Structures are given as structure tokens and as C-alpha cells.
């Protein structure tokens, strides 16, 4: 079948502002959107820029807006879009570097601000820091984050104000706040209790809908709010 792919293009060396460019591509319903982009770049227009790496929904490189929703191009089948016209745009809320490539630096700055690593200065045991299955289960959902930025860039609070820490940073803070081996939960809760922390979330649920890993992001944000309110990490 013939598919029309409309891509928001922007080359800072040539263009004053982003503009749409349309391509006709032969495709199968079982093709991924990433396959179409590869075909366009390989056969029609080598100047098209986009990020991709594993092409299996693990690396999180190819998050983009596809028909108005943040998705991974490598996890989006044409048949699931129910349309012969596909609009592909870069993620919102981050500066465009070129075409579908956005500057992820502001996103990673927020991510780094929540100390997304295990902090435990206690004497390490001989073998390992033990954790029961129930304790591991407590933060299992938020370990699935692949840092694709689909959630943060689907959030109207983040679009409106890039100072907002964003759902991805909160998810990654959650992953360590509720980890029984970690000792820096208080510090992370203090960071998230700030002006552009967790209380800028207005429970819109776009992040939960956008997450390609199906993390219950709004629920995780609610749990962090509750931890701030009660100090209870159970």
C-alpha cells in the first residue's frame, strides 16, 4: 500500500522555521514507522535526520510525535495507526537540533538533579545488599524507564515551563526513593518538594498514556507526593 508520510523538517543552517515535507512510501501494514523513516532516508532524501539505535524499543532513541502522540517509531506499527497518512514531528518542549532530533540536554539535566543512582555509605556486606522480593516489587514498575522522554515531552506542564522537573525525573527518583537499600530518599524528596518539583504535576495522565513501557507514571508521582506528605515509604 502507498502511505503518505508528512514530516516536520528543520535545518537550522537553511530554514527560518520548521516546515512540513511530504513523502510517498510503499509499505506493509506490519511495517514499523521507523521502517518508513529508514526507507525515506535511504531511497528518497538522505538529508532527513532522526535518532535510532536498537530498533527494538529498548534504547529509547527514537521517541517522536506520530499522529499527534508521543511514541517510539520502532514500536509503532502502521496498522495500529489506522491511517494512510502519517504525520511525524519531533518531541515537543525540547529545542530542535535538526528535523526529528531534539536537544535532550534539558531533559537529562532534570534527570540528573534527582540523583538517579543508589546512595548507601554504610559498610558494604561481604556478598550483597539483600532485599526481599516484596521490597524489590515496591519499585519494580519504575525500573522499566528507558529515558526516551516520551512522558516528559507529552506533559503540558513541561511544555509551558521547562523548569518543571518532569515525569521522567520523578519516575527515576521514585525508583530509588522506594528502594530499601538506598539511603538518600530524604534528599530526593526534598528536591521534589521544591517549586518546580512534583507539585507542578496536575494529574493530566498524558505521561502515562505516552509511556512506551507502560509505566504507571501518574501513580508513581502520586506515591512520591504521598511520601512527601507522610514520610512513609511503604
Amino acid at each position: 500500500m502507498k502511505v503518505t508520510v508528512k514530516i516536520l523538517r528543520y535545518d537550522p543552517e537553511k530554514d527560518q522555521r520548521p516546515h512540513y515535507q511530504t513523502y510517498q512510501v510503499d509499505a506493509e501494514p506490519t511495517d514499523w514507522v521507523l521502517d518508513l523513516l529508514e526507507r525515506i532516508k535511504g531511497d528518497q532524501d538522505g538529508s532527513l535526520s532522526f535518532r535510532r539505535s536498537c530498533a527494538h524499543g529498548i534504547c529509547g532513541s527514537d521517541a517522536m510525535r506520530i499522529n499527534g502522540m508521543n511514541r517510539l517509531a520502532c514500536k509503532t506499527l502502521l496498522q495500529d495507526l489506522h491511517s494512510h497518512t502519517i504525520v511525524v514531528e519531533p518531541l515537543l518542549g525540547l529545542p530542535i537540533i535538526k528535523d526529528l532530533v531534539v536537544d535532550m540536554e534539558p531533559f537529562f539535566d532534570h534527570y540528573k538533579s534527582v540523583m538517579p543512582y543508589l546512595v548507601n555509605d554504610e559498610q558494604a556486606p561481604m556478598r550483597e545488599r539483600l532485599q526481599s522480593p516484596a521490597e524489590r516489587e515496591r519499585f519494580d514498575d519504575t525500573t522499566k524507564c528507558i529515558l526516551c522522554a516520551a512522558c516528559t515531552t507529552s506533559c503540558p506542564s513541561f511544555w509551558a515551563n521547562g523548569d518543571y522537573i518532569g515525569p521522567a525525573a520523578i519516575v527515576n527518583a521514585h525508583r530509588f526513593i522506594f528502594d530499601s537499600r538506598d539511603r538518600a530518599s530524604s534528599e530526593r524528596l526534598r528536591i521534589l518538594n521544591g517549586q518546580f518539583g512534583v507539585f507542578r504535576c496536575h494529574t493530566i495522565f498524558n505521561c502515562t498514556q505516552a509511556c512506551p513501557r507502560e509505566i504507571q507514571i501518574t501513580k508513581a508521582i502520586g506515591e512520591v507526593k504521598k511520601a512527601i506528605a507522610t514520610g512513609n515509604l511503604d
Partner: protein
Amino acid sequence: MRTRTVPQPAMSFEYTLWIFTRISGLGMLGLGLIGFVTALIMNARNLLDMNTLLRWSFFPNPNHVVNSNIPDISPGWSNAYWQVMEMLIVFFGISHGFNGLRVIIEDFIGHSLWQTILRGAVFLLWLFFLIIAVYVILAS
């Protein structure tokens, strides 16, 4: 699984107002319900039409019932109890609304001088409306 707790972070400005938004929202509904039920106990079914009863519930000001079938509003419908109710509703309503306005403004403006200026303007407007409302309540 043992219980894990951490010291609660200090009440930040955002957290305090986040909690206040919820409490004031519930408070307005609760006060409205009290006004509604109390009016019914005072025979509002025969004395007020539905519009007047609802207006009274969410702002129990004697001016709202002065043109109803109530023969004399002074003992039951105009007293200090209702003035306190009015003030509570007005405080919750104005504060809830202006805090919402502050949140919307700060959603769109990051750390900047504009944020301080607009935050100050919202505070002054909140204070102005609160003073006007208290004046209206005490004067009616």
C-alpha cells in the same frame, strides 16, 4: 517487609498550597452543604425557591433572601453565625481561586523577575478581594 520511613521534608510553599487547595475545595462543599441543610431545617422548602436556596447555600448572605417569603429575616437568617459561615466560604473561595491563578501563572513562567512581580500582584488582588468581601459581609 519492615516499615520504612524518612523524616518528612519541611512544608514547602508549593506543598502547603497544594494541601490547602484540596482542603479549601472540600471545605467549600462542606460549608455549602451545611448552609443547604440548615436552610431546609429553617423551613426553606416553603419559604425559598430553588435558585435562592442554592445561592444561599454557597453564600448565606441575608440580602439573598430578603425578597423571599421569609416574613422576618433578622432572627434566623441574619446573625453572627451566618456571617462567620460567609467569611469562611469567601476565604476558601477567594484563596482557592487566586491560588489557582498563581499556579497557572507559575506554570508558564520560570524563575524570573516576572514571576516575583506577578506573584506579588496576585497576592495584592487576593488581599483586596478579601477586604471587599469582609466589608460586604459586615455591612449587610
